[in-house]
């Protein structure tokens, strides 16, 4: 054997050996069969999602998949109906005993999957611990005026508030998940607790419990009985499996091919008609609870002028945007932050800004601008939007084109989402285009959106009259007086163009026609994969 041949053989053998060793050490492991075999008579419901579950701690998690999966294990005190009204869930009653004291009556038939009763102690512990540990999720943001909670009986929790707040009981009840004290209290802080099931698995008081996680691939959840919020206490599917897909288009292909039964994400408007006509696919509708809007940065001298904001608001062809981009799957809010879905608050007297380029041009001239020979006014407004938001990306172009008809120049700046968030946060824009997913409580939302220092006050509005109305509404108990205050506030927002609320998008969710019984709830967060819906799902035929 020649030396080269010998060397080749040695090298070849070494390479093969190294490859085998590496393969043995790093090869993907097959999941144990016992974790995944469904019962002979009970079906598995497969749900498509586009993102991994990042965090299994519902007090921290922020992505859609986090919310969908953890929601099936950790109950909320309150739910929401199609009109945006809070409904009973874990709490059977709620309200205030004094302006600074709230309460929840907790159902007595909820049990954690390890056999421990879910009591008012769990609720009080969750609230107090979130306040103390400050986890980064949405829940903590709702606790600004919350001081402490106390379980005064196994079924009643009382809340102390730092100042009167007529929305906080409902907002905490709706946004917060209740977690088991007996497992979460072992963590030094709930803000850093991964809840990844390493210490004996997960404990659930919802209809399903996580039993198997294949990172980046699938999340398998087993049925938990009894689940008091479904008829008979037995959720329909024996298992729910969340499978990760790259995007919503691939999810649709997977639904059509029968690989999945439900798409958790809302369908893109362009797909709704097609899927509605597809055999074997059912499209369920749900109201949106948020809105899309344009916000004008009033720190900029040009946009501080009312006439300029009015001109901009009349240079948008709202009807075309809803018809063409949203395929008529959106409703006008009447250019008001009080959307029609909030039936008690909606004010039909506030009507949508008219698309009138001539009037917009006249307003610009009234504001002191002169058009050049090409008919365009001097200022150019930079409009930012997220490129990840395909609907906004489409209508941003329409806004630019329609504004040009009024002689107003808009420079589009589509941005990667994190850059968009950073620029929004710094106020580095003239016009902000975007949307809020859930604006369920007008007083809370107007506090955040229109009060000075409000964390989503992107227009930097500070109007004493508006401030007074909003502040009064936050301490006024729900009822006609609060509604009237909110409607007056919305009227001011509309007249002064502090915000240009364009539409509420109706949502459509697709599932296999082999399944029925889903309960769609407003917003993409709840969709048809909310606990009540999945627990009620049944296989047809």
């Amino acid at each position, binding site marked *: 054997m020649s030396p080269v041949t010998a*060397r*080749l053989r040695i*090298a070849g053998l*070494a*390479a093969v050996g190294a490859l085998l060793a*590496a*393969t043995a050490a*790093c*090869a*993907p*492991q*097959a*999941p144990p*069969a016992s974790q*995944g*075999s*469904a019962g002979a008579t009970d079906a598995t419901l*497969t749900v498509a999602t586009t*993102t*991994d579950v*990042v*965090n299994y*701690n519902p007090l*921290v998690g*922020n*992505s859609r998949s986090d919310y969908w999966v953890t929601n099936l294990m950790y109950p909320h005190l309150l739910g929401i109906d199609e009109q945006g009204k809070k409904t009973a869930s874990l709490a059977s009653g709620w309200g205030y005993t004094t302006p600074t004291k709230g309460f929840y009556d907790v159902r007595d038939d909820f049990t954690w999957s390890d056999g421990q009763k879910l009591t008012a102690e769990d609720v009080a512990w969750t609230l107090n611990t979130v306040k103390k540990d*400050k986890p*980064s*999720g*949405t829940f903590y*943001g709702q606790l*600004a005026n919350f001081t402490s909670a106390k379980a005064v009986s196994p079924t009643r929790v009382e809340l102390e508030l730092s100042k009167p707040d007529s929305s906080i009981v409902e907002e905490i009840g709706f946004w917060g998940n209740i977690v088991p004290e007996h497992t979460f209290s072992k963590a030094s802080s709930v*803000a*850093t*607790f*991964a809840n*990844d099931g390493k210490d004996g698995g997960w404990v659930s008081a919802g209809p399903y419990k996580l039993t198997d996680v*294949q*990172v*980046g*691939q*699938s999340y398998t959840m087993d049925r938990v009985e009894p689940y008091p919020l479904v008829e008979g206490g037995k959720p329909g599917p024996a298992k729910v*499996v969340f*499978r*990760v*897909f*790259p995007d919503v288009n*691939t999810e649709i*292909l997977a639904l059509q*091919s029968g*690989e999945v039964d439900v798409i958790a994400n809302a369908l893109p408007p362009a797909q709704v008609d097609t899927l509605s006509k597809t055999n074997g696919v059912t499209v369920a509708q749900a109201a949106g609870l948020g809105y899309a809007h344009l916000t004008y940065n009033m720190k900029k001298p040009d946009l501080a002028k009312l006439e300029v904001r009015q001109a901009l608001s009349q240079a948008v062809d709202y009807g075309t945007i809803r018809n063409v981009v949203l395929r008529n799957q959106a409703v006008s809010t009447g250019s008001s932050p009080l959307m029609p879905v909030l039936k008690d608050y909606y004010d039909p007297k506030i009507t949508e800004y008219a698309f009138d380029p001539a009037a917009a041009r006249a307003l610009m001239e009234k504001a002191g601008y002169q058009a050049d020979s090409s008919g365009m006014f001097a200022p150019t407004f930079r409009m930012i939007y997220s490129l990840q938001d395909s609907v906004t990306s489409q209508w941003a172009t329409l806004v630019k084109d329609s504004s040009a008809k009024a002689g107003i120049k808009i420079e589009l700046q589509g941005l*990667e*989402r*994190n850059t968009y*968030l*950073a620029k929004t*946060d710094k106020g580095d824009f003239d016009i902000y285009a975007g949307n809020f997913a859930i604006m369920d409580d007008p007083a809370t939302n107007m506090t*955040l959106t229109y009060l000075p220092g409000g*964390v*989503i006050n992107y227009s930097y509005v500070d109007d004493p009259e508006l401030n007074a109305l909003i502040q009064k509404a936050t301490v006024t108990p729900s009822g006609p007086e609060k509604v009237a205050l909110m409607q007056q506030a919305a009227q001011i927002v509309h007249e002064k163009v502090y915000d240009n609320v364009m539409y509420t998008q109706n949502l459509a969710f697709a599932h296999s026609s082999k399944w029925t019984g889903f309960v769609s709830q407003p917003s993409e967060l709840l969709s048809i994969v909310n606990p009540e819906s999945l627990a009620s799902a049944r296989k047809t035929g």
Partner: protein
Amino acid sequence: MPVAWLLGRKLVRALLTLWFAVTVTFLLLRLLPGDPALALASPNMTAATRASILASYGLDKPLLVQYGLYLGQLLQGNLGTSFTQSVPVTQVLAARLPWTLLLTGASLVLTVLLGIPLGVLAASRRGGLVDRLVQVVGVTGQSVFVPSVAVLLLFAFGVRLGWLPIGGAYDTGVYGIAWYGDVARHLVLPALSLTLVQLGAYVLTVRSTLIDALGQDYTTLAQANGLSPRRVLWRHALRNALLPATTLIGLQLGFLVGGAVLTETVFAYPGIGRGIYEAVTQLDYAVLQGAFLLLAATVVLANMVTDVVYGLLDPRVSAR
């Protein structure tokens, strides 16, 4: 020169490369527009909440202090804790690494198995139709972008023909031996995507070096000795022509790893590439730093192995 000295020099060079990769990654991530606190938390958070989030991950400290702390952590073998998942980065990467190794390994093997025979075929029929065809395929493969090939394959074989799955690494509810078959089925399209775009480099390299080898005196001598053309081609010319192809394997690994990030994203393949994509959207610096370090280490290690193998194959190299 003693082998130990050679290996030591290579090791020092590898460590310097890794330090450079770590530093560049650390700085580039912090140059990204965006604020991890905004990506992590609800937009409704207060300034105090944001400050608390940034402090909890040490992001409130000056850049140099953060860098020093990070290097100190690395020297202790600690890659840190994921911002979003609250678990050690090693745990995050360990869950995904096997899939990336499987994908890149399968693609590499497939590339070599296809690339060498095709290169030989083209060289042995130099100037003919087959040669031209192989060259066109090779150059085209080198010119296309991995995701474009991936999407085309996905559409053709996953959607239109329905022969292969459109995403993931395996179906849920499949166990035992069938699971391995299912994994292989899910691997076909991602591995093929990666293979097609890097095949050209192998084919063209083998072809040109083989043509060169076929013109050398030793092949002429072998032919004059009456050896069959097949034996001259495969046993004499190819053996020498394979040396550059071996180097190429090491060089292409970097490309392969980059391609895997994109391919895994298109096919929702649960490897490190998909993990990087998600970590970027969440600005999870800790996971990104760990993932890039791991990938850099893989490429550096592969290059070291290539150097050693090259030395084994060509005594002139180890003698230098």
